[in-house]
């Protein structure tokens, strides 16, 4: 088995009396989509925050590309290739789609801020940055709305921009938090196809409620309830697992 | 710095700290609950002092002046909130800075038109116009003791109201989650008026109480406002407990700083603030 691109070991997060994430271990491998499902408040989104560095873990370790990165701030992890999208659309609304992507694309090899050259050079002069933004634009299918402001886009296209911005940073690991939330059937279908193509040479973590998408895409499925992992394995094994049925899928309980 | 002198400085620092608390408590509550930064908060302190001067000159009785002045400032605070501040709760901090900065200009000018620009003294009432002989050389003015007692009583009353009464619980709940508090039937609009009026009254009252000691001069509001900000920043926005602790701390550092390191005295308080910012950018008691 190739070495895991991202590995979480016994991650926990406590908010006062509430144990939001309880001793979760998880590995993401290249060319593989690992889906995490579970009821609201099961700690899925908190888990993505712990993995991405948005929130510091109370305990546990994080390894990225074989390097210990526990406690690294968000921007450092992002530069190391750990990209993430957000459940609630979190883009630069007043800027156009292209400007959003350019800002994402220039992060990878940006000069240090106190370097005077970064004050004077033109942002869109670097071919490598423009190419990176262009690739993300095409991959996410946003060419049509390249010059319109993010604020006036439909909800579905804003979600596509959310993903495109992550792609523009050329990450190795992608954490996707409910990319299909609030999407119509057609938009959801294009997003599922996009996620499918992304599987190649990326490691994907998908937090999602849309079961059709999850079972269509997932190579590994983890079920979380109350902050703890109650089952993890292939989608088929999970679907028939009695405990999962009881806790999450709503069949008659004991 | 023999014992007696130390004791006097300690009393002065507690008295100054409690005075700052009365000012900062209003500011931190107004911000904690309504999210409004009020640069003109120092002006209420100044207006209070000038009212004490004017009313004492007219009636010859400071106690009466303070009572009437407090009532006036409650009404003034209530109206100011209703007419002006209510529309700024959801506006950006920049809009609030602009509004309150405009108010500073207006209050300074009104004060200058009403009471002129020169310094005035407020006579200490005869009842308190004596000193306690501590040692053969040192004595402590009775009015400062009265000031200490009044400020302690006010601080205690405010602390008790906030932490023990049902009203205090509603105020703290409104600060934590305004929507939820409303969903339980709490009239958040009236609560805002009340808290704002209380903040203005406390600031005016501290101005009135200090006027005999500090006398009354044009830009007294601006200087004390900065100290208020330092206290609120150190204490943590919205926390009355934080404001009390921070006020006493600043009182100590400032008073003893002036005695021990005169030329750097005014710097010490800011160094203290810088350290707190480094250690806890959200303030010591942030909720």
């Amino acid at each position, binding site marked *: 088995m190739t070495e895991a691109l991202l590995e979480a070991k016994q991650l926990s997060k406590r*908010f*006062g*009396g*509430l144990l939001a994430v309880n001793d979760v271990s998880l590995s993401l491998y290249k060319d593989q989509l690992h889906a995490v499902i579970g*009821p*609201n*408040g*099961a700690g899925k989104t908190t888990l993505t925050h712990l993995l991405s560095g948005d929130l510091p873990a109370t305990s546990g370790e994080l390894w990225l590309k074989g390097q210990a990165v526990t406690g690294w701030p968000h921007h450092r992890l992002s530069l190391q290739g750990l990209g993430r999208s957000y459940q609630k659309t979190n883009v630069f609304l007043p800027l156009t789609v292209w400007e959003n992507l350019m800002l994402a694309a220039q992060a990878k090899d940006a000069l240090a801020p106190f370097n005077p050259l970064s004050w004077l050079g033109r942002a869109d002069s670097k071919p490598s940055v423009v190419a990176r933004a262009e690739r993300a634009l095409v991959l996410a299918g946003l060419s049509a709305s390249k010059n319109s402001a993010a604020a006036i886009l*439909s*909800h579905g296209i804003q979600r596509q921009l959310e993903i495109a911005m992550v792609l523009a940073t050329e990450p190795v690991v992608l954490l996707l938090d409910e990319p299909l*939330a*609030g999407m119509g059937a057609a938009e959801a279908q294009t997003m599922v196809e996009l996620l499918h193509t992304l599987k190649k040479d990326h490691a994907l973590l998908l937090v999602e*409620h849309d*079961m059709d998408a999850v079972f269509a895409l997932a190579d590994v499925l983890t079920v979380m*309830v*109350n902050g703890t992992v109650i089952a993890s394995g292939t989608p088929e094994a999970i679907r028939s697992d009695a405990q999962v049925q*009881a*806790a999450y*899928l*709503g069949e*008659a*309980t*004991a | 710095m023999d014992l007696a002198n130390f004791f006097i400085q300690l009393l002065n620092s507690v008295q100054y700290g409690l005075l700052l608390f009365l000012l900062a408590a209003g500011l931190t509550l107004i911000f904690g609950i309504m999210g409004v930064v009020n640069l003109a908060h120092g002006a209420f302190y100044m207006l209070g002092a000038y009212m004490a001067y004017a009313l004492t000159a007219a009636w010859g009785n400071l106690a009466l002046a303070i009572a009437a002045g407090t009532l006036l400032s409650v009404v003034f605070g209530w109206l100011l909130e209703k007419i002006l501040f209510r529309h700024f709760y959801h506006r950006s901090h920049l809009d609030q800075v602009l509004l309150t900065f405009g108010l500073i200009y207006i209050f300074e000018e009104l004060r200058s038109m009403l009471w002129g620009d020169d310094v005035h003294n407020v006579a200490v009432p005869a009842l308190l116009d004596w000193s306690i002989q501590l040692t053969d050389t040192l004595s402590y003015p009775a009015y400062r003791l009265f000031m200490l007692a009044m400020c302690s009583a006010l601080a205690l009353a405010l602390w008790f109201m906030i932490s023990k009464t*049902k009203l205090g*619980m*509603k105020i*703290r*709940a409104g*600060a*934590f*989650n305004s*929507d*939820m*508090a*409303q*969903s*339980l*039937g*709490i*009239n*958040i*609009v009236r609560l805002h008026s009340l808290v704002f009026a209380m903040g203005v009254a406390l600031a005016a009252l501290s101005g009135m109480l200090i006027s005999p000691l500090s006398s009354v001069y044009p830009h007294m509001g601006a200087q004390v406002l900065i100290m208020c900000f330092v206290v609120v920043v150190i204490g943590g926005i919205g926390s009355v407990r934080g404001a009390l602790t921070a006020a006493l701390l600043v009182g100590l550092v400032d008073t003893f700083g002036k005695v021990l390191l005169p030329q750097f005295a005014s710097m010490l308080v800011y160094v203290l603030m810088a350290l707190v910012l480094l250690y806890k950018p959200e303030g010591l008691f942030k*909720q």
Partner: protein
Amino acid sequence: MSNTLLEVRGLNTYYGASHVLRNLDFQVERGQAVGLMGRNGMGKSTLLKSIMGLVKPRSGRIAFQGAPIHGQTPYAIAKQGMAYVPEGRGIFGNLSVHENLVMAERAGVRGQQDWTYQRVLDTFPRLGERLSHGGQQLSGGEQQMLSIGRALMTNPDVLLLDEATEGLAPLIALEIWRICALVAKSGISTVIVDKNWQHVTQITQHNVILVKGEAVFQGSSQQLLSQPDIMNQHLGV
């Protein structure tokens, strides 16, 4: 006096561009328990928030005890006998358990004082053990009990309960269901939002299923249970 306590007619609510509630009709009879179900993002919470006045609907009418309340402030609506237990429970972290309860204490619209501080503690013994603890030091289940207990302290006529047992361990969830049944029987009309339709239908007489902001099913629990295809299509996997 008509038996309808809460009546919603033609309600339309928008969040920015997305049309969350589409021309929705909904009512609660006096003393009735109504189940409100549907997958995530279908508008359940938005409906409760619109009733509570926390979200301003674009059009439509909401009447409570005969009088229109749409457009009123949440505290005015609450004062008329409405109580709300939000998703996420809305506990005041800077207040103790005791203070969270006491600050909401108030007689009902008709002066009734059925739910006193003592009765709430008897109903939720666990809260009695944690009175001095800060609101944020409670576990999920305890926060849910405190939130419900606090709502009862206002002696409401209608209790809106959003995500009653979401994210709670099965044992705790059973305890919450027992309390919901007890509240429903005590004469307070309740609207319960939850995914676990088996428990909801055991307590409620009437149920509504929302899909994309529209009511695709309105009927009694028996009618719902007798149509498993509706449940699988809109609620199940």
